């Protein structure tokens, strides 16, 4: 049944025992997003040091898909560079829309691949992407801030 393709065991595991659930004490990236369609909410806090995600946590509430996706994501991105994270987000987006995974994801292992069934349920793509959208927007804010700070710094030393 297609439903079992959507609700795979791995999702169940993440849903029941979400990884990295909570809020970081000292984050330098923090963003909250909602899925206006169904009211799901996620608060993502990250530490990004020298372009590497060193720590991440999520909190909020939502359906199985959005919660499991957030949990898997936090597990995957820890230790990755921002560049790698962005690439993975793009490929994850392709995966949930088309069902096909690129290399980065396969190297990422089964947990991400478990979302391939989402493509059969177009109304659930947004659920799977909520955490990733939050992440990308959070990183973007962070980069802007950084550029800004760098500019300030270079001006100060001029």
């Amino acid at each position, binding site marked *: 049944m*297609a439903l079992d393709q959507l*609700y795979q065991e791995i999702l*169940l595991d993440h849903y029941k025992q979400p990884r990295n659930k909570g809020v970081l004490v000292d984050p330098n990236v923090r963003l909250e997003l909602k899925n206006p369609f*169904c009211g*799901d909410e996620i608060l993502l806090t990250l530490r990004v040091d020298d372009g590497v995600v060193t720590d991440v946590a999520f909190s909020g509430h939502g359906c199985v898909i959005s919660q499991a996706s957030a949990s898997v994501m936090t597990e995957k991105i820890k230790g990755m560079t921002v560049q790698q994270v962005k690439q993975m987000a793009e490929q994850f987006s392709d995966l949930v829309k088309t069902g096909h995974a690129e290399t980065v994801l396969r190297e990422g292992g089964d947990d991400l691949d478990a979302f391939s069934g989402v493509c059969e349920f177009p109304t*659930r793509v947004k*659920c799977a992407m909520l955490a990733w959208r939050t992440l990308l927007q959070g990183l973007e804010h962070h980069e802007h801030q950084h550029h800004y700070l760098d500019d300030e710094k270079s001006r100060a030393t001029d």
Partner: protein
Amino acid sequence: MSNLGHTIRREFPLFNDPANQGLVYLDNAATTQRPRQVVEAMQDFYYHDNANPHRGAYRLAERATQSYEDARDKVAGFIGAASSEEIIFTRNATEAVNLVAYAWADHVLQEGDDIIVTEMEHHSNLVPWQMLAQRHHASLRYVGFDGQGQLQLDQFDALLRLRPRIVAVTQVSNALGTINPVAEMIRRAHAAGAVVVLDGAQSVPHMAVNVTELDVDFLVFSGHKMLGPLGIGVLYAHKRLHSAMQPVLYGGDMISNVDYDHSDWNDMPWKFEAGTQNVAGAVGLAAAIDFLRDLGMDAVAEHDRLLTGYALEQLQQLDGITLYGPRRNHGPAISFNLTGIHPHDLATYLDQASIAVRSGHHCAQIVMKKLGLAATARASFYIYNTLEEVDRLIAGLNQAKDYFKKWL
């Protein structure tokens, strides 16, 4: 009576489409399906009478104008309006509320005025008032609802003592199913000097609504929730408000005279219908009204009551169910949750069983906030639904509980 659903369904091509075989459509509060008669009336208009109304001096244009104005007369009659000039066509209920805000309220509201809404309003009958309040530094005040989804009328009375300028309230809640005592509320609001904007989006499709008996000032509703086409809605504006209303959109059709430096407006209701209008939509709405009138609004309401009563009775017996809204006198939209199953997951499961229910906040986030929820599942009925479909829903919910058991 339980047969109404079975017999009526045949008139709805969507249910006869093999692609939709076995579909249990329970999202009627969002939009209904259309009977053949409605689509055919629109087709007839395009095939036989199409021209730009109010413009051409030829017979075809005259027929187009006639079709449009006949539709207006039909709407007026359907809701018991004193005259057709009180009927303004809009795109939907949302646009109609906004029209009240811009055409009338903007010209009468003063700084410090009070606007009363309720905590169960659809965003469409809430956000326009929020924005209006911001524009004029007025205060938006809420009438709460109790644990049974009933408006707290003591709060309403207390707020009326502020002598508010506007009271905006829904007749039937799309999120809770509450049927509000609007006749009494309108009486009290008028006694306090307020003008009442009634949201009929969920009431006009389901029960006889008579604006003259209610003595309501403004009423809004959408054609697509009452078997009519998408893209046509209605603003009823009582004659006593007309002199205080000013056009919002300017251009063709809404003028009577244009000069180099000024223009004069057309009469009611055309001064609020700028540009070429959705004539086919109005014609379709008129056909929907004919369809409903043939059934009789009392029969429609009775069928709603039958299905809703049976569904509530069955739902109550499910383990782990929480029902939101009133126990008695419940409108045909039922909001609920099953313990441990997110409504979005539930809706996906039911969809696999060809049962279409809504999940989410139903454009009533204040209701969700008040209940401390992010979302609910919602089943809503209309004339073509049957008791067997309620049984299918209940069976589907039981299976969903079983399927998601391991997730708890």
